[in-house]
């Protein structure tokens, strides 16, 4: 992969998953239709649901305790929406500058595999042993 092309970025008509932008770009910067998550779409965190997706068990007391804290973190990030982005080109992601961060397809064996295996709680050579699972989710 040689040079990184300075080509216009693709703009999708798909809502970004996270966006804290307050204002859309002025028309000149936006070649196509672009949707933004409005502030109102940041719903208060549903802590029981969050716990379930993270496979964490919480007592009702813990849920009550964590809800305002998580809310605070979200609000803290929401401050980013105040940043003026008028002169910034839309990007599909925050990018690193410069070189493509790619590697050649050259195999290398990691020499401390034994330590990785030793750290597996239940290993029954040559397999990792886990509780019986049949269906996803």
């Amino acid at each position, binding site marked *: 992969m040689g040079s990184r092309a300075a080509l216009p970025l693709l703009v999708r008509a798909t809502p970004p998953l996270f966006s804290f932008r307050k204002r859309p770009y002025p028309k000149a910067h936006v070649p196509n239709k672009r949707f933004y998550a409005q502030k109102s779409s940041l719903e208060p965190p549903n802590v029981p649901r969050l716990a379930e997706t993270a496979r964490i068990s919480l007592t009702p007391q813990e849920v009550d305790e964590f809800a305002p804290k998580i809310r605070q973190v979200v609000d803290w990030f929401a401050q980013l929406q105040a940043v003026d982005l008028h002169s910034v080109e839309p990007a599909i992601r925050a990018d690193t500058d410069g070189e493509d961060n790619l*590697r050649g397809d050259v195999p290398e064996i990691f020499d401390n595999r034994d330590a990785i295996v030793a750290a597996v709680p239940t290993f029954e050579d040559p397999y*990792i042993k886990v509780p019986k699972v049949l269906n996803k989710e």
Partner: protein
Amino acid sequence: MRSTEGQTATQEKQQTQLKASPKKESAKFEEVLKNYEAVIGIETHVQLSTHTKAFCSCPYNYGAQPNTSICPICMGLPGALPVLNSKVIEYGVKVGLALNCKLSLSSKFDRKQYFYPDLPKGYQISQFDIPIASGGYLDVDLPLEFGGGHRKFGITRVHMEEDAGKLLHTGNGSFSQVDLNRAGVPLLEIVSEPDMRTGIEAAEYAAELQRLVRYLGVSNGNMQEGSLRCDVNISIRPIGQLEFGTKVEIKNLNSFSSVSRAIDFEISRQVLLHSQGQANQIVQETRLWEEGAQKTVTMRKKEGLSDYRYFPEPDLPGVTLSEEYINGIRDSLPELPEMKRRRYEKLGLSMQDVLFLANDINVAAFFDATIGTGADVKLAANWIMGDIAAYMKNEKLSINDIKLTPKELGELIASIKGGTISGKIGKEILFELLAKGGTVEGLIKEKDLVQIVDPAEIEKIVDKVLAANPKQLEQYRGGKTKLQGFFAGQIMKETKGKANPGLLNKILVEKLNAKS
């Protein structure tokens, strides 16, 4: 190659399973089936044949000792950072171009989160809203035994992602075993439009994808090893209805014929429910194809959309493609199966020949090299599809394993055409060449096989044979003209098959009828 017999046998089995009813009933059901249409889409995972995994340098070899090809990156240990293998992009672009897709000059990786023991990181690195390629199509020629015809199936998207490890559910009850060698191996997920209507179309779409990735050299496409995995989405609707029916996903399809048979089973199952007023029994779910029982069974019901909480992978930069890079790959693409088939068609080959020769890239290369020597196209096709294919099947060899070279096949065809050797001798030489190699010229000399084309010499032998069989000669002249074949056989025996058959017959007939 699928066999038609297998197909019919399965259908019969299905019907008995579905109803266990007399033939009249099953004929009636065939009528009911005609009122419905199936809508089928396929999601295919193609394992890329890179030397290393997608985001770390661990080598991947199918069948290696479990849990030996692992490192902190593919095991998801804290602090380890992924670095993308450049081949994954190259192969993604190749497949995208070959599927006539539009490429995203700028795409990215996303995290798909779920918890499962085959996924050490707790998320899969995949592409979500911006796949590397989208909006293409795949051209397919249906096999003649299923009616033939050409189809164009839409490709929704192609995206890059990593594979999960392998889970083994052994009989001993409460445990499953995990092998993480496969965790992090690069995959391309290819999603089709819901353009297929029958099991045959779906199986042929999958077979064409396999051909494509093999031609491109990006995957071995082996279904048994799981290098090519197809998940089928299928719904049915009464013909004429616009909205789709409830979609069911079928997994565990390990061969093209199981794709086709699972779909046929599922269509029958759903149509039966529909026709009995139980359409509400068709629910959105994942069903498993059971090869032994030849049926699909419920694996899990879907409760709404899974919440994978995708977000952009923060540990990897975006994927940027330059026009130069894409053009370089486009220029290096080999002739693809569809192009090859159309070219063979233009050479004047029948569709059956075309499909056979283009099916396997190595067979196609052998054929191309043979006609490259100037050999007659149809004769080359006949030799490859006939005696050579039969030999490979008997000996369980691939075309790359046989000792015969395209150059010598070309030589053999030319020697027969030019009259140096007879077709019968040609066949004998062929088997020698297949098994031991060598050259046509060398074998002809070594075995003294040059055809006898001197009329005087043939005449001498004819006289000798007629003189040795006076009784048969008398019968022939008495009207039993079928005996000509007997004399021709005797002469061939005498010359060890070397007499030119045309000349032999001409001289023989003259001599046989001379005194009558």
